[in-house]
């Protein structure tokens, strides 16, 4: 009896040991990813310098010029466009699902959102290439090729819609019932309650939803390569109307990496890893902002 027990005990220890190794391996892998990218990026930061790298306007690997500003501006502009289009719809959708939609409508809309979230990004890119780019090309502005920020923003807006809607909906649903009942009891209409009580109470959750949407938009790669034109320029309006800036081509940080990595050697390769580091830091900032917003909520 005693012998048996100790054998089981040792088997348990062995398994624990294996699991511990497993856990350590997972941790090592996770941190190795960040570390390796930093190591590969380091020569670029050292040789080019942080400021010239971040603020340089010229990215010409052939001439050893590595300025990331065009891609930073491109990423920010396309994200801005996506947020402008996607967030109002996403939040409205969340409010609709949480407050207004009858159950049968929810049963239709919710799987639709799930599917939207699951469709591979290349399929969105394909849709952009086949439908949006020719559509945008119809806008009669000289130099408008259809490829550019507008097409990319619309694609991204659809892609971040599920993120924004799902997290906002959770936030709206978690608003305490007493708030609603109090407001309704005071004679407010349902809409007044939503706009005056529920949404303000869910504000930090909605902010978190938007920030996570921004994170998703910043990180998208393939769909961007397909529709944004990949030109290494700081986007400028095509004519006197400042909105035509969105008809300009651009390149995102992610696209910069994907398009050039397989070509790159030496300092060029380091500069692409440095692009990755910049992207990494941007996303970290965005995500920690989202965490802060979430924490304020609870």
């Amino acid at each position, binding site marked *: 009896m005693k012998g048996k027990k100790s054998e089981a005990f040792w088997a348990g220890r062995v398994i624990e040991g294996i699991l511990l190794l497993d856990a350590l391996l997972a941790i090592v892998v996770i941190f190795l990813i960040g570390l390796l990218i930093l190591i590969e990026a380091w020569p670029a930061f050292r040789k080019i310098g942080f400021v010239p790298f971040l603020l340089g306007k010229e990215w010409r690997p052939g001439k050893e010029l590595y300025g990331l500003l065009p891609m930073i501006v491109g990423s920010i502009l396309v994200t801005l466009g996506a947020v402008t289009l996607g967030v109002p719809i996403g939040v409205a959708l969340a409010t609709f699902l949480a407050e207004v939609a009858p159950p049968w409508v929810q049963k239709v809309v919710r799987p639709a959102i799930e599917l939207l979230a699951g469709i591979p990004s290349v399929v969105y890119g394909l849709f952009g290439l086949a439908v949006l780019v020719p559509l945008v090309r119809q806008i009669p502005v000289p130099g408008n090729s259809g490829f550019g920020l507008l097409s990319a923003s619309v694609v991204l807006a659809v892609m971040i819609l599920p993120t924004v809607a799902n997290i906002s909906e959770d936030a709206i649903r978690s608003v305490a019932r007493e708030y609603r009942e*109090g407001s309704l009891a005071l004679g407010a209409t*349902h809409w007044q309650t939503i706009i005056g009580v529920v949404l303000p109470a869910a504000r930090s959750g909605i902010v978190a939803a938007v920030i996570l949407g921004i994170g998703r938009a910043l*990180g998208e790669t393939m769909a961007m390569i397909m529709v944004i034109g990949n030109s290494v320029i700081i986007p400028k309006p095509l004519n006197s109307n400042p909105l035509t800036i969105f008809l300009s081509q651009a390149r995102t940080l992610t696209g910069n990496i994907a398009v050039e990595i397989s070509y790159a050697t030496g300092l060029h390769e380091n500069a692409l*890893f440095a692009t990755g580091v910049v992207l990494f830091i941007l996303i970290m900032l965005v995500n920690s902002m989202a965490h802060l917003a979430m924490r304020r909520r609870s």
Partner: protein
Amino acid sequence: MNDPLFVGQGFPSTRGQYRWERLKQRLAFTLLWASGAIAILALLAVVITVVLRGIGIIDLEFLFTSPRGGISGEGGIFSTIVTTLYLVILTLGIATPLGVGAAIYFVEYASDSHGKKVSAYMVQVARFGVETLAGVPSIIFGLFGYILFVSTLHFGFSLLSAGLAGACLILPVSIRTAEEALKTVPRSYREASLALGATKWQTIWKVVLPAAGPGIATGIILNVGRVISETAVFYVTLGGSYKLPSSLLSGGRTMALHLYYLAMETKAFDKAMGTGVVLIITIVVINLIVRYLSAKLAARG
């Protein structure tokens, strides 16, 4: 002013005002309904475009012949389906044991009372890493896979490189979902099992894991979807040869990657759409399985 009740001012006092408020509400709700409609329309626009233009191309020949390359995108998608399957098996085969094992350690051992301070610290470090990496764009994992597997370890553009990079991509999510699934198992289950004289591992294997099963399975299925959808990582690690891979060291194309190449480089838009239809159907099936599993979970809880 932090109390939300005071934010909405001007509750109706007269009948006219009340009518005005009703009107405003009707208008607002119309807009909310419109947002619901937009979500459906966006989905329909994408799905219908792709399906309408792609469904015609799908037949047995399309599914069961391999691409022949060339600038007109001849051939079907057979080898890309197989490559996708290989990669799913490879990435999940690597990431799932690693992720679930790590999660078991974190939840069942490290946070245990007999767990030492070191392991509690380790869990924190791991959680930080997992949280950070879960939000990182996939192209970063591509960079990592490229420099480590393709370049430094000389695996080249290959299934092996892509599989390892893909495993790293889904590892954080694997750990997190498995952890969450394990945490939903009530403490009383474990206590009852231990009280009956079972060892810790017996408890984990016979009680905790079966109870956490649907949750873990959901995580695995979601990861299958993620690998099928992923393009950026494989774009920089898998090479893109349309041939059927013959070993771990040969390159290949997943369906998503094939779609990208067809859309970008050939005139075969319809075949790109057809590949898109196959992808969408796969994702729908995956969503249905997840739904089924979570319904099962909900029914039990």
